């Protein structure tokens, strides 16, 4: 039975979170995730995230749609079932363009939605991991995975940094993922809050 443990630092102000992120990145301590109730400007830069490659996926999907539409219509109109429409040539490219345009957009948009959902773990029926109920309300969370790569020293260093930057609460949470249901147990590491 696999189970994953996380240490979660909860902040009550985004500036504290940004300061902690900066300090942690300086000390090369790995941050697993950051969760905020609203978009915090500049957070993605502080976390050192690269630009999303979602639009590259969108371009490829769009190109697929374009080629699909063009080849499919060409095949039908010139080979599979050629009909003369108003004396136009069989390969009447201008009349293919509107359909090609629509299919390009359809493929790109639907493909991007699917890729987005898959990459963000939003597939249908999937139970999301809720690190803390309040992260959609008034708490800003930093999440650190506790696994074999993470030493006890590192965890202590992280905790020190969080406390230094005015963390409101630090807690640990464990998820076990057999039978698609997550059981969670909360272990309080630190009760002191500011």
């Amino acid at each position: 039975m696999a189970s994953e443990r996380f240490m979660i630092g909860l902040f009550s102000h985004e500036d504290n979170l940004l300061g902690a992120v900066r300090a942690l990145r300086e000390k090369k301590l790995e941050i697993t995730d950051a969760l905020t109730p609203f978009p915090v400007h500049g957070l993605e830069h502080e976390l050192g995230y690269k630009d999303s490659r979602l639009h590259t996926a969108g371009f490829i999907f769009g190109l697929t749609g374009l080629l699909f539409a063009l080849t499919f219509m060409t095949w039908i109109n010139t080979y599979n079932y050629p009909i003369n429409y108003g004396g136009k040539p069989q390969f009447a490219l201008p009349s293919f363009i509107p359909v090609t345009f629509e299919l390009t957009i359809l493929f790109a948009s639907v493909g991007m939605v699917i890729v987005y959902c898959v990459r963000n773990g939003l597939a249908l029926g999937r139970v999301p991991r809720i690190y803390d109920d309040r992260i959609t309300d008034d708490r800003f969370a930093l999440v650190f995975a506790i696994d074999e790569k993470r030493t006890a020293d590192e965890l202590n260093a992280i905790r020190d940094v969080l406390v230094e930057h005015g963390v409101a609460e630090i807690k640990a949470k464990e998820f076990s993922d057999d039978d698609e249901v997550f059981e969670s147990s909360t272990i309080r590491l630190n009760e002191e809050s500011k």
Partner: protein
Amino acid sequence: MESQESKIFNYSKQAKKVAFICMGLGVLGIVLSIVLPDMSANHYSRFWSNLLLNTYYFAGIAITGLFFLAAHQLGYGGWHVLFKRVPLAMSRYLFVIFGLVVLITAGLLLDWHNLYGHWAHPHEVAYADTGMAEADRIVVSKSPFLNKTMFAVIVPGFFLMWALFSSAFTKRMTFIKSFKEYNQSKYLSALFILVFAVSMSVLSWMFIMSLDPHWYSTLFGWYNFASYTVAGFAFMILILLYLKSKGSYPHLDENHLHDLGKYLFGFSVFYTYLWFSQFLLIWYANIPEATVWYTKRMAEPIFEFLFFFTFLINFALPLLVLMRRDSKRKFKVLGFVAVMMVFGHYLDFYGMVMLEPNAVVEHHDDHHGEDHDDHHGDHNTDNGDHDSEEVALLSVAEVEQGDDAHHGDDGHAEEGHTDEAHGGDHEDYHGEASEEAMGHDEHHAEDHGHGDNHGDGHHAEEPATTHAGLGFVELFIFLGFLGSFLFVTFRALDRQDLENVEDPFLKESKHHHI
């Protein structure tokens, strides 16, 4: 970041010199277009059509500045106020434009040029149904709108209105000290948008589309608008990049240019959408009176090349280059695309304007070439159904060949007269045969032209030749306009602290972040 001080912009002597050299070349171009041996054809049409082309193109670029401001003011935009001096300065050129428009109008009234010869001097056409020569019916049917008086009132009137709007905007919008003034400027913007929406359409009909009054496209106004708006944004980007490099805009960064790049990208796609919509409908319907605009251009190698080249340069290039986020944020890439847009859309307008006035018209051959269209138009308005076209085609055929054969004959179809009208009826037609429908149409036009005058004999190997060319004359005159445009723009900005525009949204604009 906060402590960056903006420098007073000084229009340097060097930059002035460049503008003056450009203007000098422009004068040289004008002199060349008058002095060179074969330029005197058709009332110096090459000079006048170049003047018309550049006037219209730069009017579009100048008015884009006002459109940009009005649209943002109405849309509660705040990010642009940092550099709102630049679009305002661009619009100052509308006063120069007004002068040139008055010149062109005077030329029309006093017969200095023959740009609008099709309707200003309508000629007689032999009609089949009466068997007599009478005034060109299409021109006559449009004459309540398309006549010299209307032109002399509407065209300079609208351009004067644009110029006055430029004054009003400069007065009201350069310094907006309070939210009250901000809200008042919304009324001016709304009024401008209303006037602009009507005037830009009407001007595109009167000024450009009436070069060939036999043809019309309902999309033409929008198509023109999209084209010069792209060019206008390209100019705005280039001027901002220049001012930024001179240190006048320390707070202007890649975020602002990213947004302008989005406009460049978006309007390029919008332009292509209209470009293609106009073509697709005409191609699909394949009605001679509509296809004539394209067939004339396809008959001239240079215009045929431009037709596809502008598509490539105005659509494929910005689409593929500006699609990436990074390329909109890199000044060099954005600047390169903007330069290409400036030339791409100049060439687009070149294709619209230059062919018509420069066509060989000594014997009015090209007018006769459209005779058959006239019948279409007339009968369509009378009956509005398909049969009338067949009758019209038949009647043309009678005049031309003295032939009483029934329409719809296979013999006729081969000659292309009935291709368009009957294409759908002939079940045995397949792609290869009907593919040339457009080609036939074009021959068709030629045939009639000579058919009226000389009977049979001349045939399709003779396309409507033109004096239009892309040579030094065009380049110099374009440079002359460019130089004067930049001169007027930078003169309006000279010795000013460009970032110091009082506005409730200035702070937001300085910290624009996307």
